[in-house]
């Protein structure tokens, strides 16, 4: 190899886009192995490219199509503001624009097929159409527009694309296909995303993404306005340590951090959006985040469960305005309930789903049920009177039952789902309960049974491999489940792929694949539904 006369910045730059000949690549690799300065340059250029690629994509101004149409018809180009007379907005062109906008309104009244669809129906911030807006006396300032054109009830999902050595995460609004690329916090590559939680104001998305071969998860929070991200923690995804949820007011995010080495400790952490920092809340070593309860007299309330042979749950409280407490709130006189594990409180605070049984510790899964593990439903009246969620599942003679499982509520506080069943007992018939099944019930409609599982559609990939259930999210009204179904990877270096499938709970419509279609080439999911609080 010939030595370089100086640092080969041009080759380093070109290497970022693979724009090198084989000889150049070999020469550069040889040089990099002995030149720390050039390695720094490569790192800086790579980060720069990543940052630029992750910049927020802005939606097209809503009136632009109409403006182009008007310009074509009037043979007029846009007049820059610095050449625009003050009275121009009241002139013929603006009238024409408003007229076209009115026509568009008619055209698009059928629905919101894309961002343009709503565009003409509402005043635009652009100078041209502000003429139309100024016709109506509406000086009331409005809040910053919601990212991704989202509206309550819409489905958002995370998508992983790109080659295995350069993966990219994007958040997509399913209805309009508006999207924002997420920057990588820079502590490792993105991989399959397994959980996601949208803040009540619709502006921040927290998610858990795999770190790759290590198997741990990174907890990341992202701004949906600009794709900026911050990594909050790395955790081992133990069975009951996978919940991430925003507090009802959206200020705090709660999650469990289990030691990555899987040596058994776990504790609850909080992220505070106001301070921008995350901090460990509990110091028990066997604590799991269960759920938030409605605020009470200016206090945040969250349920924390302690993994023990006979598990308990405690209600941690701290003043909302004070930030994350430095003292362990469980160390004081927290409300403690014996025999209750991982209570998931409904949005209205009236009911909770939770687990009962005897637990033991497993190095990989953390605390799981060894005997009698069963999901229950209770009204939140302080009595914790348990009603088994399933009417047709019984604990075996040796205590065989669920080892673990996942629970979800819809925002209607009536519809719930049990999924990801890890059933240690004798199957009650063919594949029941099915680890890939989603059992959906309603508080108002009795217990679950084998017939409570909506059809998820084909569970086989085109490769013939069986799909596996990753995540389930229920729509706010409980009518639809967004189900993430992974496709087994043919090898470590293969691109992760998954289906994101919209499933109607009552079977009104056949399951529909969102994003990737029938033969996905990327990982889509998890899905999150925009809550009613958005825009409210």
């Amino acid at each position, binding site marked *: 190899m010939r030595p370089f006369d100086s640092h080969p910045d041009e080759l380093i*730059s*070109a290497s970022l886009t693979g724009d090198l000949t084989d000889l150049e690549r070999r020469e550069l690799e040889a040089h990099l192995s002995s030149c720390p300065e050039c390695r720094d340059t490569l790192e800086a250029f790579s980060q720069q490219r990543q940052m630029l690629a992750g*910049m927020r*994509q802005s939606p097209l101004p809503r009136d632009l199509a109409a403006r182009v149409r008007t310009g074509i018809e009037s043979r007029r*180009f846009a007049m820059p*503001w610095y050449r625009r007379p003050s009275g121009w907005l009241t002139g013929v062109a603006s009238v024409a624009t408003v007229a076209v906008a009115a026509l568009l309104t008619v055209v698009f009244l059928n629905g919101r097929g894309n961002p343009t669809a709503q565009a003409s129906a509402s005043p635009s911030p652009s100078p041209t159409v502000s003429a139309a807006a100024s016709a109506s006396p509406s000086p009331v300032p409005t809040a910053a527009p919601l990212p991704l054109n989202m509206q309550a009830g819409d489905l958002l999902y995370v998508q992983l694309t790109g080659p295995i050595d350069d993966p990219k995460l994007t958040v997509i609004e399913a209805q309009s296909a508006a999207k924002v690329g997420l920057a990588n916090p820079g502590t490792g590559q993105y991989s399959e995303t397994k959980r996601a939680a949208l803040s009540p104001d619709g502006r921040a998305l927290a998610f858990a993404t795999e770190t790759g071969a290590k198997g741990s998860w990174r907890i990341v929070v992202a701004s949906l306005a600009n794709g900026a991200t911050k990594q909050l923690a790395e955790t081992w995804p133990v069975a009951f340590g996978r919940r991430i949820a925003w507090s009802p007011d959206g200020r705090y995010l709660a999650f469990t951090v289990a030691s990555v080495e899987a040596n058994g400790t776990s504790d609850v952490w909080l992220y505070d959006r106001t301070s921008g920092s995350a901090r460990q809340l509990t110091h028990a070593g066997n604590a799991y985040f269960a759920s938030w309860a409605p605020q009470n007299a200016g206090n945040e309330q969250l349920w924390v469960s302690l993994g023990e042979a006979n598990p308990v749950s405690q209600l941690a409280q701290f003043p909302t305005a004070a930030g994350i407490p430095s003292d362990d709130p469980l160390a004081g006189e927290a409300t403690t309930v014996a025999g209750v594990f991982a209570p998931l409180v409904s949005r209205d605070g009236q009911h909770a789903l939770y687990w009962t049984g005897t637990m033991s510790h497993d190095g990989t899964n953390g605390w799981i049920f060894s005997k009698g593990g069963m999901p229950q439903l209770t009204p939140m009246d302080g009595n914790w009177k348990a009603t088994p969620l399933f009417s047709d599942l019984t604990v075996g003679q040796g205590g065989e039952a669920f080892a673990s499982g996942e629970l979800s509520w819809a925002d209607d506080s009536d519809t719930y789902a049990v999924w990801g069943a890890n059933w240690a007992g004798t199957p009650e018939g063919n594949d029941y309960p099915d680890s890939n099944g989603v059992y959906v019930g309603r508080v108002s409609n009795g217990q679950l049974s084998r017939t409570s599982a909506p059809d998820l559609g084909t569970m086989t990939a085109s490769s013939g491999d069986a799909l596996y259930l990753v995540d389930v999210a229920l729509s706010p009204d409980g009518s639809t489940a967004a189900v993430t179904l992974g496709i087994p990877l043919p090898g470590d270096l293969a691109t992760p792929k998954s289906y994101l499938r919209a499933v109607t709970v009552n079977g009104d419509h056949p399951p529909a694949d969102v994003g990737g279609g029938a033969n996905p080439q990327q990982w889509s999911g998890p899905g999150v539904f925009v809550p009613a609080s958005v825009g409210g």
Partner: protein
Amino acid sequence: MQSMAWPQLIGADPVMGEAPGNTALESRFERIFAQFSEPIFNYVLRMVGDGDRAADITQDTFIKAYRKLDTLADDASTRSWIYRIATNTAIDDMRRRRYVTPMGDDERHNRRPDPRPGPEAQVLDASIDERIQRALGRLRPNHRQCLVLSDVEDMSATQIGEVMGMSHGAVRTLLCRARGEMRRELLQEGIGS
């Protein structure tokens, strides 16, 4: 890529009437607008750093594209063709602005970063994007242009050459200089190493 529907007028077009061939022209333009309107707007936004200006330039770009549609030889070259129109329109705009308003909006891009960004501002506000955009805004226009085409639009050096009218080798050299300049500007914004 997110697309935006091209608005269909109701009834006969009062200006172009029902001229033969217009339907095919409209249809072709509709496809181009749907595919490229949002990417072009974002590209121009990176170039000029101001939403209203970007909207004006994007508007002019597509009006020009409509009028030049017969010069587009084949659909395969549409991307570089439309980016070239957008690039030239943006450069024209920047030149005019420099002449008309030497101390105009561009001045704000020369401000130094706020030394007191709160943690939340860094994470959940637009501050990172704003700082990157400020750094971009201080680059020479041709550096900014090739960097955005490469790293935001993910174009190859060959494609960038088609847009900018340069050879592959010249693009590689320009891109390297742009990255070096951007690295220094990002450092000014407290980003990078």
